């Protein structure tokens, strides 16, 4: 599991991904951890198959007791099917997730962790004095979906938005946006069902001051590539499977 520090100041952002031991037929995913004042939150901690490498990777940065919060952007297995295992090692933690999916996510096994349902309009949480905002991203792709924005580090964890399907071992950051478009196009057109939801999200995100946009699959966007992405995504027709059936 590769680890990369994305932000290091009063608090830290760390990304985990590109696990070389991961079975080939499992989609690669990026996991993130924000650490502030000896408290940490894991963002989309990953599938059950990733639990062991993730556990080994996170304890290099924080003691387990310091991981007090988890966030699941939506209900997919690559996001949170490891929940039943984290539930055993972080019994006192709180999982923030869309209210819509609480009853579904609990199927992954949750006997100890507390579920904090995020209302549709989003909310702000506190991590050791740092405010983190859950930004609504409904229908991108899940019908109950949130992203996380850190206004201090200016990082947006964008879940499946900005995701790309790439071969294992690809670089962590977007190097050539125009080339990268080909890796993102199918994913966004097929997984994202609603043009209205997409445009609504683009409008909302344009108002945020973002330095880094970090999706859950593929590469991380920095600087001007974020604006390029928003422009590209805005004009991209999504929900294409309907057209294919006609």
């Amino acid at each position, binding site marked *: 599991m590769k680890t990369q520090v994305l932000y290091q100041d009063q608090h830290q952002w760390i990304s985990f991904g590109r696990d070389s*031991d991961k079975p080939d037929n499992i989609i690669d995913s990026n996991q993130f951890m924000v650490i502030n004042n000896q408290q940490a939150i894991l963002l989309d901690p990953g599938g*059950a198959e990733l*639990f*062991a*490498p993730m*556990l*080994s990777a996170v*304890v*290099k940065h924080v003691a*387990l007791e310091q991981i007090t919060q988890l966030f699941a952007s939506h209900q997919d297995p690559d996001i949170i099917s490891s929940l*039943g*295992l984290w539930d*055993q*090692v972080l019994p006192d933690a709180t999982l923030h997730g869309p209210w819509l999916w609480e009853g579904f996510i609990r199927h992954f*096994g949750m006997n100890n962790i507390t579920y904090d349902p995020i209302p549709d309009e989003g909310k702000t949480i506190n991590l050791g004095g740092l405010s983190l905002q859950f930004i609504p991203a409904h229908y991108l792709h899940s019908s109950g979906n949130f992203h996380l924005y850190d206004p201090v580090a200016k990082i947006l964890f964008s879940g499946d938005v900005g995701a790309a399907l790439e071969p294992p071992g690809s670089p962590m950051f977007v190097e050539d946006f125009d080339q990268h478009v080909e890796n993102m196009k199918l994913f966004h057109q097929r997984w994202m069902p609603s043009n209205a939801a997409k445009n609504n999200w683009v409008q909302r995100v344009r108002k945020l001051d973002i330095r880094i946009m970090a999706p859950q699959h593929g590469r991380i966007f920095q600087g001007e590539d974020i604006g390029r992405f928003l422009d590209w995504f805005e004009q991209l027709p999504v929900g294409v499977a309907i057209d294919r059936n006609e």
Partner: protein
Amino acid sequence: MRHENTLQTVMAANVAAELYHAQQITRSLSISSKNLRVLAKRIGQNAAGLAVLASFYDECSRETISLADQVSQMTVTTTGAAVKEWRASLFARELERAFDSMTEEQTPAIVKQLLAGSAQREKTNQKRMSHFNRQLHDLLIDMQKNIRSIAVIAVNSKIEAPKTGEHSEVLLGMTQKVEEMIKRILQHIDTALKYLSTHDRGKYT
């Protein structure tokens, strides 16, 4: 209550984390030994004793890094294996629940087979984990011994330093840094051993 496999997984991950930090410091230690050797060479005859000590430093550091690599590999494999067992035991527990609510006629043959298999698997797993923990303990003790040897070399370097005249202050400074690094490495190894002994209730100590 946490399952034995959960505890094993967490213990292996914590030991790996401590060793990761120890390994990072040992790498710096290895660089210090190279610097010491270069300096000893530059000083010449007056630092002949130091040159020998620097070689020992280097050798011990490299051995320690290699041991830490072995431990790291072992813990990664074991964390993965422990999680697999943990998931298998969760499955076995659910299977037992299902079995308890079935009559003899209702119970499919595969359920009986799986239940019998899971009991055997649990036994084998316990043996394997116990073997792993013993190996881990031995490797950690070897690392501790290596680092303690470096500590002895550091003391000897301090004794040799005044013989180098004008360079003695630089050498003493370097030795002091090495001693600080040694202290931190030993702390990480001690913590790793504590994780292990807490888990195994002092079986190997």
